[in-house]
C-alpha cells in the first residue's frame, strides 16, 4: 500500500450519476520505472475527500504506466463532491488495496493448450469497472473473454463500446429492456459456454450468478462493504467465509466461489 497525491487529469460523465476520472500518478513521466506500482484487476483505491472524515473506497477500472482510471457512482455527499472536482485538482489516495482477481485460476489458460480458456465476466452496475481492467488483462494474455454487462436501464449503461474495443464479445442486459436484452445478467447466462467465472456487482446479483453457474466452474467474485480504513486495521468490513472470517479490504474484495457464505 502506498499513500500518494494524485492529480486529476480528466473527468467525464458516463451515464446518469456515473463518472469516469483519470488520475495522474505522482511519478508520471519519470524515467525510473522502479517507482511504478504493479496493479491487479479488482484492487481498489481509498480516497480522502475534503470535508469527509472517512475515505471513499473505489475500484480501479484500468491503469497505465502513468495513470489510473476509476469509475464511480454519486451515492452521497462525498462522491457528489468528487464529481465536481476539476482537472488539475489533487487527491490523497491509499492504493492499491485488496487482493485483486487471480488470473492464474482463469479456466484452462496456460495449463492446457488443447482447449482455449473461456472465461465469463459479469459486471452489474457499479460492478462493471473492475471487469474492464480484468478484460484488458485477459485479452492481453491471449484469452477471449465473454462479457455480460447488466444495468437498470439504457440511461445507466456505460463502457459497452470500450469492452467491444478490446475485442470482447459483449452481451448487454437492462432490467427494463430499454437497451440490450430485457432482464437480469442471469437471464442470458444459459446460452454461453464458459469454463471460469468472474463477477462484480450487487450482492443479490452475485448470489444469483453463483446459483446459476455450474458448481464445477471455478469463479471469483468481488464484494463491497462499508469500510473504516480499507487496509485491515479496523475490522469494519469483516465477512464470514467457509474458511473463517476475512476482511473484505485485505483478504478480499475478491473471493473464491468455493469459500463464499451467502
Amino acid at each position, binding site marked *: *500500500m502506498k499513500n500518494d497525491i494524485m492529480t486529476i487529469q480528466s473527468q467525464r460523465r458516463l451515464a446518469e450519476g456515473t463518472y469516469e476520472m483519470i488520475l495522474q500518478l505522482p511519478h508520471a513521466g519519470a524515467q525510473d520505472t522502479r517507482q511504478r506500482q504493479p496493479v491487479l484487476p479488482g484492487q481498489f483505491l481509498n480516497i480522502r475527500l475534503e470535508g469527509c*472524515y472517512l475515505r471513499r473506497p473505489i475500484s480501479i477500472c484500468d491503469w497505465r504506466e502513468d495513470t489510473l482510471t476509476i469509475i464511480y457512482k454519486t451515492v452521497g455527499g462525498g462522491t457528489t463532491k468528487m464529481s465536481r472536482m476539476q482537472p488539475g485538482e489533487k487527491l490523497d489516495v491509499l492504493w492499491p488495496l485488496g487482493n485483486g482477481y487471480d488470473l492464474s485460476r482463469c479456466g484452462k489458460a496456460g495449463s492446457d493448450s488443447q482447449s482455449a480458456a473461456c472465461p465469463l465476466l459479469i459486471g452489474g452496475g457499479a460492478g462493471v469497472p473492475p471487469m474492464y481492467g480484468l478484460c484488458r488483462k485477459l485479452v492481453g494474455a491471449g484469452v477471449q473473454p465473454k462479457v455480460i454487462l447488466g444495468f437498470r436501464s439504457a440511461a445507466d449503461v456505460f463502457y459497452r463500446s470500450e469492452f467491444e474495443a478490446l475485442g470482447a464479445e459483449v452481451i448487454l442486459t437492462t432490467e427494463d429492456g430499454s437497451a440490450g436484452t430485457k432482464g437480469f445478467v442471469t437471464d442470458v447466462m444459459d446460452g454461453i459456454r464458459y469454463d471460469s467465472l468472474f463477477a462484480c456487482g450487487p450482492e443479490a446479483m452475485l448470489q444469483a450468478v453463483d446459483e446459476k453457474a455450474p458448481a464445477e466452474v471455478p469463479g471469483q467474485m468481488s464484494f463491497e462493504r462499508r469500510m473504516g480504513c480499507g*487496509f485491515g486495521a*479496523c*475490522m469494519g468490513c469483516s465477512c464470514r467465509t467457509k474458511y473463517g472470517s476475512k476482511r473484505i479490504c485485505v483478504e478480499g474484495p475478491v473471493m473464491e466461489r468455493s469459500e463464499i457464505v451467502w
Partner: protein
Amino acid sequence: MVRETTPATVPTAAADTAVTLCGIEMTNPVMAASGTFGYGREFAALYDIDLLGSFSFKGTTPKPRFGNETPRIAECTEGMLNSVGLQNPGVDAVIAEELPALAEVFHKPVMANVCGGCPEDYAEVTEKLEIADAQNEAQGLPQIGWIEVNISCPNVKSGGMAFGTDPKAAASVVRAVRQKTKKPVIAKLSPNVTDITEIGRACEAAGADGLTAINTLLGMRIDLKSRRPVLANTMGGFSGPAVFPVALRAVYQLCRAVDIPVIGCGGISSAEDVLEMMMAGASAVQVGSANLVDPYACKRIIEELPQAMKQYGIKALRDLAAQAQVR
C-alpha cells in the same frame, strides 16, 4: 523494565518528549488506541512502529469472536461510528501468533487490551498473557507493559460497557484482573456515564494503576433512503475529532479526582491535540480513529511534537503533565 531500543528519530535537544507511565519509560507519550491498530502488523508494513511511545492492541477475549454483523461502520461529521463488536482471534491465538510476530517489529512494551463477558473472562485473558510473558518479564524485557481493562466497549451485549457504567461492576473487573498480574493495570473508561469520576475512583480503589479516558460515545445514524439504522447493530461507538472536547473534559475531571495517571484518548489527530490533552493532566495519549483515515497519523504526530512544543515554549512533556496535575 525499560527495553533498550534505538530511537527511530533523534529528538532535538530542546524538546524532551519522554514520559513515564506507571513506572514504564516511554520515548514519547503517543500510543495508538486499541481497535485501531490491530496487533501492529498492518502498520509495521508501512513504517517503523518503534517510533511509537507504545500501542494498545486489539481488545482480546478468552475465545475467538467474529463480532457484530455488517455494516459496522458509519460516517459522521468529523468522526465515525463503529459497531465491530470486539472481533479478535482469542487470547490463545494472540499468544501463539500475534505476539511472536509483534516481537519481530516492535521492541517496546505493548499495552494489552483485555475484555470479556464476566470478570472471570478478563481474569483468564490476563492470566494467560501474564504466563506467556513471564520469561520476558524475568529477563527484565516484558513484551506486555500494561494490562488495559476494557470496561467500556459499547458494542457487546454482555460485559464491556455494562461494567464501565457501574462503579461496583467496574471495581469487580479491575479486582479480578489485579489478582492475576503484577503489571500495571489500566482501566479504560466509558464516557457514557453521568459522573466519570465516580467510576474512576472506584477503579483506583480496586487497585487500578491508571485510567484511559475515553472509549467511544454511544451513537447512531439512520439511512434516509431505507429509513433504517446504518449500522446492523443499530447503535455504535462514536469517535474522531468531534469527540476531542468530551475526552479532554473527562481527562480534566479525572485528573482532579484520582491520584493515578490518566491516558487521554478521544479524537486526537495532531501534536497540538497531544499538548492540549497533557495540559488537561494526561500522562500519555492514545490516537485512535486518526490511524484509520491516515495510516501514518501516529508517525506524523510524533514527528510534529518537537516543533509544537517549541512553539508553545514546552521543554519537557513530563513537566507539562506534572504541572497540570498539581494545579
